[in-house]
């Protein structure tokens, strides 16, 4: 069977995902703009999704792809909620710098 993995090896997908995930992690850690943090989280999420799909193909099992659908749907919902929160934070504080968001302090 002609498999996409025959052209580009599974290890390359894994490396790509690891790099993407690390970019996401460092984005989350280093950036202070809440929207960019958010985008970084999405990158991490999609890195994992990509890995799912890659392994799904590798194992000839559709379950991984099905799972990615769910994960994307949930991510969409989460983005909607998250952006709404950001909007309301911006309305209140005129800023979305996460260093300013210290009202959750215990």
């Amino acid at each position, binding site marked *: 069977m002609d498999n996409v993995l025959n052209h580009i090896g599974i290890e390359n997908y894994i490396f790509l995902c690891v790099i993407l995930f690390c970019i996401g992690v460092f984005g989350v850690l280093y950036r202070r703009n809440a929207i960019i*943090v958010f985008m970084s989280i999405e990158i991490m999420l999609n890195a994992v999704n990509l890995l799912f799909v890659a392994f799904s193909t590798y194992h000839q099992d559709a379950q991984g792809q099905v799972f990615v659908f769910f994960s994307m749907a949930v991510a969409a919902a989460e983005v909607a909620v998250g952006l709404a929160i950001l909007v309301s934070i911006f309305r209140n504080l005129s800023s979305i710098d996460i*260093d300013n968001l210290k009202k*959750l302090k215990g």
Partner: protein
Amino acid sequence: MDSKLALVLVLAPFLGFLINVFFGKSLSKTVSGVIGTAAVVVSFVATLYFFIQLNQTHKPITIHLFEWIQLGNFNLSFGFLLDQLSLLWLMFVTGIGALIHLYSISYMHEDEKIHSFFAYLNLFVFFMITLVVGSNLLVMFIGWEGVGLCSYLLIGFWYKNQEYNDAAKKAFIMNRIGDLGLLIGIFIIGHLCSTLDYTTLQTTLASSGGLLVSKHWLAVAAFCLFIGACGKSAQIPLYTWLPDAMAGPTPVSALIHAATMVTAGIFMVTRLHFLFDLTPGVQSIIAVVGAITALVAATIGLVQNDIKKVLAYSTVSQLGLMFLALGLGAYEVAVFHVITHAFFKACLFLGSGSVIHALHGEQDMRKMGGLKKAMPITFLTMLISSLAISGIFPLSGFWSKDEILMVAFEHNKALWVIASLASIMTAFYMFRLMFLTFFKDFRGTDEQKHHLHESPSLITFPLIVLAILAFMGGALNLPGSNWLNHYLAPLLSHGEHGEHVFGTTEYMLMGVAMAGAIIGIAIAYTKYVKQRQVPEEDHNITGFTKVLYNKYYVDEAYDWLFVKPINFLSRFFRDYIETALSGFVFGLGKVTMEVGYYGRKLQNGNIGLYLFAFVIGICAIISYLFLAQ
């Protein structure tokens, strides 16, 4: 009809208690007292009705109120048993109770808490009636505990004095020791016979003749019950609370600590005579304990200077004589002495109360004297009662004490000697009390002398009634008529000691007892009237007198033997065990607090830090998963 009237009998004092407790403050002092007295009078009238009825029909009345406890084949009902014994007891509990309530109206009139005094007194009468009329041991136990509570409340009635509080606590704790014995005894009986009902118990024990029931356990039960009786009736080794109980107001001493409550032990033993008859070993213990108590208490009484303390030791001593009679199986004799003792001892206590009242609270006989002229009625009534308790013919004490001595003589000469010695001493210290209080010159302050007066009629009336009873009480069981013996015969069926054939021995014994009493009085007369001696001041007392004056140092010995070790143990537990335990518990709390205090700082609201923590966490988890494989 009967059951309703019986309920009235029992509940009237309780109603009086409720009224005085809840509305006492808004009532005037006299009204409060009148309500208290009326409640007891109602009980007395009801008792009288039952008593007359019983004397006509000779049938005990059993009143079943409700099923109380049902456990498997063990059934216990809540009911009353109005038979010869309980009605006799009720007669003097409510009768003397009513007189003492009447007396208290005047005696306690100065006291601002008079309504609670009457409330407690009524509650006491209620519990005492419950104790007496209960148809089984557990109902009796309710009353038994209740009278102990009231005794505690009334001893500590003047609670602002710490010594009185201590006396109250002492009485309560001493009684608790006895009560535990009683309770264990009741449990053993319940286990052995699967019933606690008096009548069923009697038939069970009589029919099986002790065959079905283990003799040893029966003896253990009887002994435990006797410990209970020791506690309540102030016998060695649990007697020390009674003299201290004189801290209570004098009417309380008269009612609770002389006439009624302390006779509960005798009541219980008489009630369960069929049990004690089966255990001769325990009976001899009772007799010996009674005799020794009678002697020891009488010797202590010889040198006491507090007028009420003398009477208290005299009470302990007389109770000892009653137990001697019980131990020898002469239950009706003990009952006879209980009744006569209730008359003259109540009279003596009330008389001493009248004296204390006149002297504004002075109780030391060294500061009295010459009260004869100022208080003729008190003097006369107390004289009659003193003659009665000393056993002078033909007053009541003579007959009852004489019977005890006769029974003792029949069974055991040594016990007779002890009992006779005790009664000679009784005559001595009673007349020492009389001579010091009423004869010669007054030794108090001038101001007291100026205020000397006879007590009001509310105080003297009960005195007169009781003195008449103390005079005539012997008629209950005169040799020849033996009314009391016949009256109690259906209950105490053996009747072994019932009728004395009067021979020379008996007349000789009577003569000896009488002579002993007269010798005692004569010694007291020479010492305190002719030689005008006055007991020494406390610090001048030396030698054996000092030992007696300090009550053989029994309190100190108990303190050293029991109180100190227990205090030591409790201090040990407090200082070490509790410190360790609480240290551990507090330590846990402290650690949690500290962790929380520093952990709190992590939650600083810096989202960047949180995210960093996430990442570190995930890295840690992943590394762990890799390493774990």
